[in-house]
């Protein structure tokens, strides 16, 4: 056992040694230790380097407030975690940690040179320099600053751990399982309510764990809570308090286990909805601000007590205390009783509680009232302190190996503040405490300002006989913010506490100011000549402590990142070697390459097959909405630009949907199944939007219409058969439908059976060929597809994908909403003004089409483009100009929306929108690319079968 481990003390299992590695060095602690307590037990005080000046640093605290002892924890490949506080790392076998922000080693850090240059680096220095010469910022200064940046190691491998989440619902959530939290839980435990008690530490009890006198009570209370069915979660940090009783909490499940034995998810996010919330988050002891208060060995008094009683570790052999608050005395007494030497108790107050004085005297402790520590000594650990009576230059030096600070207490009001709870200044505490009321939420115990024991004083910084601008008295230890930085900020006109925070970075380190905010505020208030409450506090932001991205991302990764919607024919396409593309949430077959075909070759073959024989296409992703009710036709008439009332059952119509702003939103074909029933299709990506838009109008504008809408997108698998031989493929399998052109012409609809299952059959075409879209109940989709595929073999059937579909429709000038139109096109712009019912008095978007800008002749209009070079395929998105080689900025008159090589025509074709385009048909325009400008001729947006005769095949 090391010299600092105290036999017979602590709650941990000293008999069970635990081996760990610290900066490559093998060490031994005990089961139940934190890394911090184990390091102290090994006599290690130097545990880190500060952010800016690389000053040697030791442990300040014993919990999440720790600003100095940040470690990189390595649990194997991909499992390195940066910036973990040594005080929260539970010791386990094979624990491997490294200190950070030092090179080449913690003991000898070249970065410490910045400490020597620190007079040049006050707060905000970077605003004032690095500007000359101008080019040096990019070439010299910024790269240098970035090299110095950061704390922990950057990640470089993928974390193999899993993270999980759940929702919890409770009547009462208590955050913090110290005395106040446990008492609140006990009080509620008999009510039969659902009570949940969470605490960030591995063991419930909070500060009671550092108070052996209360251990029996604690054990009994926890047993009673367990018996009463109170859900107690340890290692669970409430990270934020949100609206309406919602609390996010993260439970750490495996980091305390040796990597080899850790199974299951690493962390669990609890999304807790609570009817009532009690915040019993306690308080954090405040450090004191004086020269060189950052030397290793200078720590919070309460931390020393925790190390003593909870871990059986002495923080030193000869310990001095600097106190401004009574609570420091108990620590001194406990240490003395444990046989640890007390060098002195320095108290800034002139008048001390007689009972404390008496007790100190009984224990033989030297008590120095009305005096302050004005400096510390030592290189990488404190070896002594200098103190002076207040207002005096009669300094005195005392040797010690630790200096404890008791500067009073800061209630942990973060969660209260997240909930927009008001804070009021408590003069006695020198701190902000919750004030007023909040729906569902109350505070109790130290969090509410009920700090026990004793009183104290709070000062902006300890008095010093030296010029305060001449030394470093740290306020924010991690970010190296000193009292003089704060005073400088005030001097330079930064008066708001938010400005001071941002200018100095006080409170912006990874501890989010848990030990620095109040001291910073008080230094600022002193410099401003204001009181602390006048200056106010900066806003607390979630999370309370840093929270793993993975825990918040949860299981949403890889295949579970977002659903990939697949049609029932997807498996067939996959087996055929299809290449897929993502369209909205769907995965769609883009083309079906054979052997060594590339996309162009496959698409050319697929196109030819459709034009000359028959092609087969999975159109299942098209949105489908069943519109049912006596007013169905009236409803569609109001929604769509087209007239619907006269459409006969058994007929289809192209429908065009605008937004109320007059721009094209969606399109599709709808069939009238019966007087009161339509089968409406939408684009793949527009399905949900269109249904939502329809519901909006139906429910809120026209609730008098008797119409109901149901999404049937996934009810039907849709198999498109396109090409002159399409009829031949389905005919043998269709029952109950006369497929002849006379009985079922283009844009007709019929119901029957195919392959023995019910079918909705659309005689429609998006290719310009004879076409059928076979809708069958989705569960039968694959079987019908396979049957038609088998049937089609004798007709040379070819499966085609979305790319071929795009080419075929472009040859016919059919637009794709979202590609050829982009949310700024009207029906007339898109050349589909024919779809607008001229006699209709109203439909969604109609009024907007009469706005002045919609009537201008130079609006962009859909046209075709033919390149002079028939082999050159324009790039989609390429811009169009009418004057070649104009200087930048070049006036652009439009852009290419769709462009392909047309196997049918043996040349390239393109669709484009061009300002006043329809009047330019026949004109020559130019498409300037980076390397070359291409000449194009404007044409009608229709390249194949102008008469449309093939549709009637």
């Amino acid at each position, binding site marked *: 056992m090391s010299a600092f481990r105290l036999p017979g003390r602590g709650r941990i299992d000293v008999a069970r040694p635990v081996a760990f590695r610290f900066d490559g060095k093998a060490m031994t602690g005990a089961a139940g230790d934190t890394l911090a307590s184990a390091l102290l037990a090994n006599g290690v005080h130097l545990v880190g380097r500060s952010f800016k000046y690389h000053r040697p640093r030791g442990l300040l605290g014993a919990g999440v407030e720790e600003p100095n002892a940040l470690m990189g924890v390595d649990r194997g490949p991909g499992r390195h975690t940066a910036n973990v506080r040594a005080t929260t790392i539970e010791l386990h076998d094979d624990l491997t940690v490294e200190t950070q922000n030092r090179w080449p080693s913690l003991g000898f850090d070249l970065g410490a040179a910045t400490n020597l240059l620190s007079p040049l680096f006050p707060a905000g220095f970077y605003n004032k320099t690095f500007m000359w010469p101008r080019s040096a910022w990019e070439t010299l200064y910024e790269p240098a600053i970035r090299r110095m940046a950061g704390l922990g190691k950057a990640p470089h491998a993928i974390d193999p751990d899993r993270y999980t989440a759940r929702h919890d619902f409770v009547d009462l959530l208590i955050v913090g399982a110290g005395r106040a939290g446990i008492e609140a839980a006990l009080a509620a435990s008999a009510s039969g309510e659902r009570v949940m008690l969470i605490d960030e530490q591995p063991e419930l009890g909070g500060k009671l764990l550092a108070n052996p006198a209360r251990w029996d009570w604690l054990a009994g209370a926890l047993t009673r809570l367990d018996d009463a069915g109170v859900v107690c979660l340890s290692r669970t940090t409430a990270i934020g308090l949100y609206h309406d009783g919602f609390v996010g909490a993260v439970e750490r499940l495996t980091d305390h286990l040796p990597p080899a034995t850790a199974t299951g998810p690493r962390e669990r996010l609890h999304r807790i909805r609570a009817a009532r919330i009690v915040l019993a988050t306690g308080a954090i002891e405040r450090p004191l601000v004086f020269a060189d208060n950052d030397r290793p060995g200078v720590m919070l008094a309460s931390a020393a007590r925790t190390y003593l009683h909870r871990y059986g570790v002495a923080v030193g052999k000869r310990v001095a205390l600097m106190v401004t608050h009574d609570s420091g005395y108990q620590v001194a007494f406990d240490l003395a009783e444990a046989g640890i030497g007390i060098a002195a108790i320095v108290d800034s107050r002139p008048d001390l509680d007689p009972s404390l004085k008496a007790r100190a005297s009984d224990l033989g402790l030297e008590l120095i009232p009305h005096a302050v520590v004005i400096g510390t000594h030592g290189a990488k650990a404190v070896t002594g302190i200098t103190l002076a009576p207040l207002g005096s230059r009669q300094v005195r030096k005392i040797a010690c190996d630790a200096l404890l600070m008791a500067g009073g207490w800061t209630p942990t009001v973060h969660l209260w503040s997240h909930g927009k709870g008001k804070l009021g200044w408590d003069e006695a505490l020198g701190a902000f405490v919750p004030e007023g009321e909040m729906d569902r939420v109350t505070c109790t115990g130290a969090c509410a300002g009920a700090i026990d024991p004793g009183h104290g004083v709070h000062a902006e910084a300890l008095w010093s006989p030296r010029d305060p601008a001449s030394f470093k008295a740290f306020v924010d230890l991690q970010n190296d913010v000193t009292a003089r930085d704060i005073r400088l900020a005030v001097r330079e006109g930064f008066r708001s506490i938010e400005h001071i925070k941002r200018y100095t970075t006080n409170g912006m380190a990874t501890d989010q100011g848990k030990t620095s905010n109040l001291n910073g505020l008080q230094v600022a208030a002193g410099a401003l000549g204001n009181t602390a409450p006048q200056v106010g506090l900066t806003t607390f932001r979630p999370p309370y402590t840093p929270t793993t991205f993975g825990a918040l991302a949860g299981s949403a990764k890889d295949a579970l990142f977002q659903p990939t919607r697949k049609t029932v024919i997807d498996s067939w396409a996959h087996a055929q070697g299809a290449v897929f593309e993502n369209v909205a949430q769907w995965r769609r077959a883009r083309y079906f390459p054979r052997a060594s075909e590339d996309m162009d070759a496959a698409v050319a073959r697929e196109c030819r097959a459709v034009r000359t024989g028959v092609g087969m296409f999975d159109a299942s992703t098209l949105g489908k909405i069943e519109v049912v009710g006596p007013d169905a036709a009236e409803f569609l008439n109001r929604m769509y630009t087209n007239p619907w009332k006269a459409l006969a059952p058994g007929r289809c119509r192209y429908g065009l949907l605008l937004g109320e702003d007059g721009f094209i939103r969606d399109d599709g074909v709808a069939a009238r199944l019966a007087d009161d029933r339509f089968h409406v299709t939408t684009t793949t990506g527009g399905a949900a939007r269109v249904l939502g838009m329809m*519901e909006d109008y139906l429910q809120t504008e026209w609730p008098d219409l008797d119409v109901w809408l149901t999404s049937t997108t996934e009810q039907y698998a849709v198999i498109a058969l396109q090409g002159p031989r399409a009829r031949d493929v389905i005919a043998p399998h269709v029952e109950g439908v006369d497929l002849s052109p006379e009985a079922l012409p283009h844009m007709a609809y019929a119901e029957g059976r195919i392959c023995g299952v019910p079918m909705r059959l659309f005689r429609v075409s998006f290719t310009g060929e004879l076409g059928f879209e076979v809708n069958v109940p989705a569960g039968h989709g694959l079987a019908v597809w396979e049957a038609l595929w088998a049937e089609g073999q004798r007709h040379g059937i070819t499966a085609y994908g979305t790319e071929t579909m795009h080419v075929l429709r472009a040859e016919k000038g059919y637009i794709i909403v979202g590609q050829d139109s982009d949310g700024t096109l009207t029906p007339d712009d898109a050349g589909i003004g024919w779809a607008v019912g001229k006699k209709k008095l109203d439909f969604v978007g109609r*009024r907007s089409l009469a*706005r002045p800008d919609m009537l201008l002749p130079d609006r962009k209009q859909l046209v075709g483009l033919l390149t002079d070079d028939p082999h050159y395929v324009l790039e989609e998105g390429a811009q169009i100009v009418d004057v070649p080689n104009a200087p930048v900025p070049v006036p652009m008159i439009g852009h290419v929306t769709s462009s392909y090589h047309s196997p049918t025509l043996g040349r390239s074709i393109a669709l484009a929108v061009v300002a006043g385009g329809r009047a330019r048909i026949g004109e020559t325009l130019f498409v300037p690319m980076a390397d070359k400008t291409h000449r194009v001729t404007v044409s009608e947006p229709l390249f194949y079968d102008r008469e449309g005769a093939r549709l009637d095949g």
Partner: protein
Amino acid sequence: MLLIHCPYCDEPRPEIEFGYAGEAHIARPINPDDLSDAEWETYLFVRTNARGRHFERWRHVHGCGRFFNAVRDTVTDTFERTYKAGVARPGEADSWTGDTGGIV
């Protein structure tokens, strides 16, 4: 995550089930052609964007599917009340029923 009382389901439900649908009580004109361009612009785009008490529409899209109205304080995000679509704006008598929605 907000907790929103759906007036149709008559129970509080989590925000993620809902879709916000803009300011409430902006009825689509019966005859849009009667509106000037400026009036049509107002209908389309101009919104109160109140800092404080705000009348707004939500849809319980992943629940009962219904659009409804709400009064919410946009500074605190606290819902004062929610009510079914078609009910008069609280504080104003419904022109048909005289119902003021319980608010005078």
